[in-house]
């Protein structure tokens, strides 16, 4: 009954949400403006700045690279992260505790330091191709999300179900795919999405791992902003937001939105 917070608190929370939403609304408005400079509210509605994105080859290329890296990096992270998350939960007693900490290290150490370290030892040290370095870097920064989200799913998984399947004659590996994995499906989807978006938005690691001809979209945006002050970047931003909304809609359909809050 008397659960309702003080009106002043409600007012402050409303202002905080306004503070969170307004800048994004402004970006959308600016993207739709017909002017050659950034302005809000938009003067004359036009989609020409969206068209402009695809006319600038640097944007075209980096969008493709970013999507490639995000998809590949996420898949590799799932490939090595799912078995790790499974083992951490299933063999909790047999495996040392620090192993769990090891997999969160990539978000514990400053990302920008990690990017620099990779540049120094991998790209410069071994002469590895830039695309490969970029892929390795992104795989590692999304690995903690994969391990943590799937671990959380597995934590509520009753492993006696797996034992029941094995006792009924199902081989362990087959059991993993037919019994365990379907039960943590929601976790895998959430991990995929979180990892994909994290990779797509990454700046700090990519900053060092770009080179002639290869760059990611956020790095290209940074470079563009420093030279031009036209609505192209606003349009790219809207495109990225649109992608985020699409992803959230998929999550909503499959898992319910509150899932993301965890």
């Amino acid at each position, binding site marked *: 009954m008397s659960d309702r*917070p003080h009106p002043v608190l409600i007012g402050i929370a409303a202002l905080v949400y306004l503070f969170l939403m307004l800048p994004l609304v402004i970006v959308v408005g600016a993207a739709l403006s017909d002017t050659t400079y*950034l302005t*809000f509210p938009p003067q004359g509605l036009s989609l020409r700045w969206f068209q402009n994105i695809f006319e600038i080859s640097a944007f075209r290329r980096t969008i493709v690279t970013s999507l490639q890296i995000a998809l590949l990096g996420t898949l590799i992270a799932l490939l090595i992260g799912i078995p790790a998350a499974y*083992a951490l939960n299933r063999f909790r007693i047999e495996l040392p505790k620090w192993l769990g900490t090891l997999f969160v290290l990539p978000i514990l150490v400053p990302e920008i330091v990690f990017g620099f370290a990779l540049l120094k030892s*991998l790209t410069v040290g071994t002469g590895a191709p830039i695309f490969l370095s970029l892929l390795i870097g992104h795989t590692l920064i999304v690995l903690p999300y994969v391990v943590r989200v799937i671990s959380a799913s597995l934590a509520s998984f009753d492993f006696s179900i797996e034992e029941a399947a094995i006792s009924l004659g199902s081989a362990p590996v087959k059991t993993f795919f037919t019994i365990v994995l379907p039960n943590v499906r929601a976790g895998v989807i959430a991990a995929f999405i979180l990892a994909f978006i994290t990779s797509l938005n990454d700046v700090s690691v990519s900053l060092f791992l770009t080179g002639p001809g290869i760059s990611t979209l956020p790095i290209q945006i940074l470079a563009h902003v420093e030279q031009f002050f036209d609505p192209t970047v606003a349009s790219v931003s809207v495109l990225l937001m649109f992608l985020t909304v699409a992803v959230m809609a998929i999550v909503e359909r499959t898992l319910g939105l509150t899932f993301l809050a965890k």
Partner: protein
Amino acid sequence: MTARRFWRRSGATGWALTAPATLAVIGFLIVPIAAVIAGTFMDPRGAFAPYIAYFNSGFRTTVLFRTLQISAFTTIISLIFGFMTAYVVSRAPGKLKSLLIVAAVFPLLTGVVVRAFAWLIILGRNGILNQTLLSLGIVNEPLEMLYTQGAVVVGMVYLFVPLMVLSLVGVLENIPKDVLQASSSLGASPMATFWQVLLPLAVPGLIVGAVLVFTGSFTAYATPQLLGGERQTVLATLLQQRAMVSFDWVGASTIATIMTVITISIVLAMSHIARRINPMAT
């Protein structure tokens, strides 16, 4: 039969399953970073020469203190507003609550570059804020808001408030309802319950949130780069300049080491404190 063999091998199976991820983290993260750190101690001028050089440079120490200052401001502001907002969100009725959570998740999933860029449009010399202030006659000349410490802090708060809100909503929801009800049944007014029960129980969560925001803003790159520029150089932007513009590998490595040491020590110290004072632990 199969099951029995499976059980007996379990320890080894566990190691085998974690091996690829373990090797990836060791090979591509720990070794390269260890190499960066080790490199700074193998300077021909002496083991600590790069650090002596760093702290002898007025500019670089200023950058370090500026970074700490910006992070501290960001953390405090995010903590205060994040907590108040999280409190309101956690008390909201079901439907509204999930809507508010989504509204906090959305900016979080929008990239840092986009979110910094939004403030570039707002705070610029010809930006929306200046246009508004000019047209309202509040100022006669556009204010120089960009490339100030305030601009960086605003951008950072914008970056981290959603994170703070979400993590604190989790903390507040984890406080059992019946403990709060017990408090009011014993005659505590809503204010007394807040100060004497809710807040003390939320402290470990507040510490975790603060660490998250502090280390995040301490190492952020895109926001200070776009909103602070060269005038508000921070450690992250300095590191990038040293490495990519000046090709000063030793200097960059020194900055990287300082950032790593500070970040890891804060995380370890605070998680130790949070664990020690966490009353829910047992």
